[in-house]
């Protein structure tokens, strides 16, 4: 076996061990080393050169990135998740026939969907969904994400929150926590539109806070334009009904006249 590949395997083994120990600092270090090492292999995407050891390399690279994704979930680093996921993706989409599909594929794809849902990037969510093969939709991990999105869109927020109990994979728990926050933001946005003001108690109930304190911190952090006064939360309506757009009459008249003139000139 190629000595370099041996080195990679060794470091990777250490990474796996560290991950089990939840020693994230070491993990990040090792991962960074690994990624640099991986750039030296021409058989990896995007070049896909045919080398004798291509299959092993591809497999180990995929494994590494899968672990990187899992690591980022554990460290709750969404940016790193995104980065690693995109680097992992070519291994799923473009290596058909070169290496057997990974058992981790569906959970990770599901995780990504969940992430998009959490970040409220619905458009990308659907794009990803469309790119999945039809049989993947049957997979519980992905099905879970899809159902969540449906509930989310319908406004059945309680169903979203209760879905936490039915996660198909232990890594999903982290995102489910984040999802609660997204749901709250969504509710806050709606109430802002729907009400001029709400009593603190109602607001607390709607936004699913257990104490007034939590509510006021939330308002301070996320919605500084709201105001708490006399036991009521006032939603500032920044967007006063905008004056309907003026018709650019003069410009239109000028244009029409010049058209007429040009028409006259037409040879």
């Amino acid at each position, binding site marked *: 076996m190629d000595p370099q590949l041996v080195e990679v395997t060794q470091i990777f083994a250490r990474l796996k061990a560290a991950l089990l120990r939840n020693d994230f600092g070491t993990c990040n270090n090792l991962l*960074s080393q690994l*990624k*640099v090492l991986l750039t030296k292999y021409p058989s990896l*995407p*995007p070049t*896909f050169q045919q080398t004798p050891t291509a299959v092993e390399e591809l497999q180990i690279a995929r494994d590494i990135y899968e672990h990187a994704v899992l690591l980022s979930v554990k460290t709750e680093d969404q940016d790193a998740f995104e*980065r690693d996921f*995109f680097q992992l993706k070519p291994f799923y989409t473009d290596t058909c026939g*070169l290496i057997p599909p990974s058992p981790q594929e569906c959970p990770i794809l599901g995780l990504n969907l969940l992430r998009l849902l959490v970040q409220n990037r619905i458009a990308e969510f659907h794009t990803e969904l469309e790119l999945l093969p039809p049989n993947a939709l049957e997979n519980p991990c992905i099905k879970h994400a899809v159902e969540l999105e449906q509930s989310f869109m319908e406004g059945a927020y309680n169903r979203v929150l209760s879905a936490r109990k039915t996660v198909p994979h232990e890594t999903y728990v982290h995102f489910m926590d984040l999802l609660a926050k997204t749901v709250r933001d969504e509710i806050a946005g709606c109430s802002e539109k729907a009400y001029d003001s709400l009593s603190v108690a109602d607001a607390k109930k709607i936004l699913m806070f257990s104490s007034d304190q939590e509510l006021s911190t939330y308002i301070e952090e996320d919605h500084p334009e709201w105001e708490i006064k006399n036991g009521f939360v006032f939603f500032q309506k920044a967007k006063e009904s905008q004056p309907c757009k003026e018709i650019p009459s003069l410009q239109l008249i000028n244009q029409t006249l010049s058209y007429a003139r040009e028409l006259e000139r037409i*040879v």
Partner: protein
Amino acid sequence: MAVVSSASGLLAMLNEEHPVLKLHALQKLNSLVNLFWPEISTSVPTIESLYEDEGFDQRQLAALVVSKVFYYLGELNDSLSYALGAGAMFDVSEDSDYAHTLLAKAIDEYASLKSKSDKMGEEGAKIDPRLEAIVERMLDKCILDGKYQQAMGMAVECRRLDKLEEAITRSDNVHGAVSYCINLSHAYVYHREYRCEILRLLVKIYQGLPSPDYVNICQCLMFLNEPETVARIVERLLRSDSKDDALLAFQIAFDLVENEHQAFLLDVRNHLYLKPQEASLPDNGSVGMKSENGNADEADNAASGAQDVLMAESSHAPNGNLDPTEVAYNGELTKIKGIFSGETSIQLTLQFLYSHNRSDLLILKSIKQSVEMRNSVCHSATICANALMHAGTTVDTFLRENLDWLSRATNWAKFSATAGLGVIHRGHLKQGRALMAPYLPQTGAAGGGSPYSEGGALYALGLIHANHGEGIKQFLRDSLQNTGSEVIQHGACLGLGLAALGTADEEIYEEVKNILFNDGAVAGEAAGISMGLLMVGTASDKASEMLAYAHETQHEKIIRGLSLGIALTVYGREEEADTLIEQLTRDQDPILRYGGMYALAMAYRGTANNKAIHQLLHFAVSDVSDDVRRTAVLALGFVLYSEPEQTPRIVSLLSESYNPHVRYGAALAIGISCAGTGLSEAISLLEPLTSDVVDFVRQGALIAMAMVMIQTNESCDHRVGTFRRQLEKIIQDKHEDTMSKMGAILASGILDAGGRNVTISLLSKTRYNKITAVVGLAVFSQFWYWYPLLYFISLSFSPTAFIGLNHDLKVPRFEFVSNAKPSLFEYPRPTTPPSSTSTVKLPAAVLSTSAKAKARAKKEAEQKASADKPSSDSVSASSSSGKGPKATEKDSESVQGGNAIEKKIESEQSFELLTNPARVLPAQEKHIRFLEGSRYVPVKLAPSGFVLLRDLQPAEAEVIVLTDAPSNATSANSQQNSASSAMAVDEEPQPPQPFEFSA
């Protein structure tokens, strides 16, 4: 083989912290950008930030990636600025669309910056040194790769004369490179001053060469207007011992004369007189004076000018105690002076046109018969057609055979008819005045002829001496001063303008101005034009004076004359004329705006300048006055004549305009710019216009068509035959409008102009704009308002001839080959009497006997054709031999068409031998080859025009072909008789006399 389907992984990698990963991602992106630019474009800000990150060591790579993405997005400006940032990473030799596009963009950018900074002077736009570096890298690469033409083009475009010089001097064929560069500077450099700079550089390079190409140097010097340098070169060549050098000097002189720049030629000549040794300077001055006198005299006593000067020279020689070489030199000097004065070439042309005249009197006769006598317009059109057909041939048989008919011309028609004589005798410098004598105003005798014929005669003198009026100027001035009649003033003004074309003679100008200030409509119009003719291309401040008077006067005719005159003054001045053009085109008076259009046409003649074209097109569709719109379209023809292929495309939409004036303008624009080309697109565009619903559009289209088809025969383009038949039909149709009839008559005149030996060309063979021709056509296009101006078209006629000359400027016997089928370039067939053709057309019942007879006839025809074949081979000059097979072909055609034609093609030779002097059509030039082992070798390998021949066997006697035919005093007397009899309107009619040149 797996292929990556998205760049998102790599883009994600860009956000990694480790620089090695970023670098890896960038490198991969750089190679994949052509596939994934849409994805990458969303991440451009990330890459840009990498580029801006000072700590990142591969910033250039980042810049290159960004540049490529912008390129694919179509943002070339951004792309270029990042490519500049990429520095050396941007590979100029890369063979990709990206590299090519960006290089082009960079060069464009650089060129426009350069020209901008040139315009604004030193402190102009600061040029990015990185941009400059890229362009220089590109230029160096081109030079290294041996792509010199590319390098030269770029250097010219970028105004890098240093690089241009490098490219030329390092190229393997310096002569070729320089001549390529000359073409380049004429065709693509729109800025006049810059063009001069280039030419100056070229002259410098030329002079540095071991064997300078004097012919080209002198052409350049002519553009630069440096007569003194030309004179010095010519002098050096003449003084050299070798006869070849003298031949070269003659050749230079002929080439310069062909460009028709009278003022320049006069300057060269004057410098030649002053140049010889300082010791004899005053003497030589007197020689110059003497010869001037000689010139003036020569017109009076109809003696040979060249002889006269020779006498002056030789009589002078002993006084100066000159050694034999000096005498020989003086002899040469006389010859070259004769050439520079234009007399030699005019005389030779005249002889050529006379001896090769192939005009078809039958056409004229049928026109004359079908035109109604009382219709004065058609009548004078016929006279004009005759004049054009015989322009420069001195053949006035038709006039003399039809004196009665001719005498119907009265008033202005008589003026025109007399002027027509000038066209026929164009270039007959020596006897011009004698010929016109019967019609000229008689000094002293008060009650001479009609003022119309007198005025016409003065105009005719102008036409005869156009652009070579040294000898006749004084006489015309006297006539102008001695008359009070507006008609005579009109003629004299035109004549003076023509004779003193472009000389900017102050005295004449003042005299003409006085006529103008009399404020007579008719004379004032001519004066306006005349002032323009005098000042052609001088861009003098006289224009503002003329403009002021144009505002003052009430007469539209005068305003029109003046506005044309003003337009003529800015001839060829390009940007320099912009202020004046602006002034004219913004005027309230439509006539002055109309002058503005002409000013645009004249200032940008033959430059195909985009700005001028835009302006003209704008006026063509936006002006309120039909006259202005028509002229604007017409002016396009002048701007575009150097690129005739462009014109049909540009005016094709205009030719479908609803406005007949615009359609008319479009027709003439094509006529002017495609004149003499026989361009197929032009003909296709004109064809529908010849059957337009509006009469004057038909007229314009017919004239334009004739201009395009001049000297094209039916075997080149079958539509020529159709057109001839169409003309015939229009002329004979009783119900046709007078306007289109007139157009048809003139068209037949133009089609067969100059005895079928001339074409209309606005460019000389060296691509110099022929001032006389351009001015002639410009004034010609005024015939819309004033029919006598029709005759100006004769100025644009130039003979299509190869005339070889030996050292004595005689025409020796010399043969060369035209490698093309003779039928392609032969003269059109002479028309046959109408009676015979009409019988052929009758449909006949086919009887069994007649079928048999036909079969027999066919057999006979075939035999005849085969019999003709050898005989035609044996005859050298094709034109006459062509007739034999033609006639039989016609017979057999009536029996069975296709078969006979095929046979003819088979039997025709693929080349013909031409004998000096020969008719060589412009289209034929590329087929001309000189024979190896011939006695004479041309100094310059030119397929047409005047070519000096080097005699390889000087010891043997030469066979001279053309002699000084129409020159000696023997014929003067008879000529006077015949001339006076030519149009016996005022005198006693005399019997027509046999009129022959002693050939």
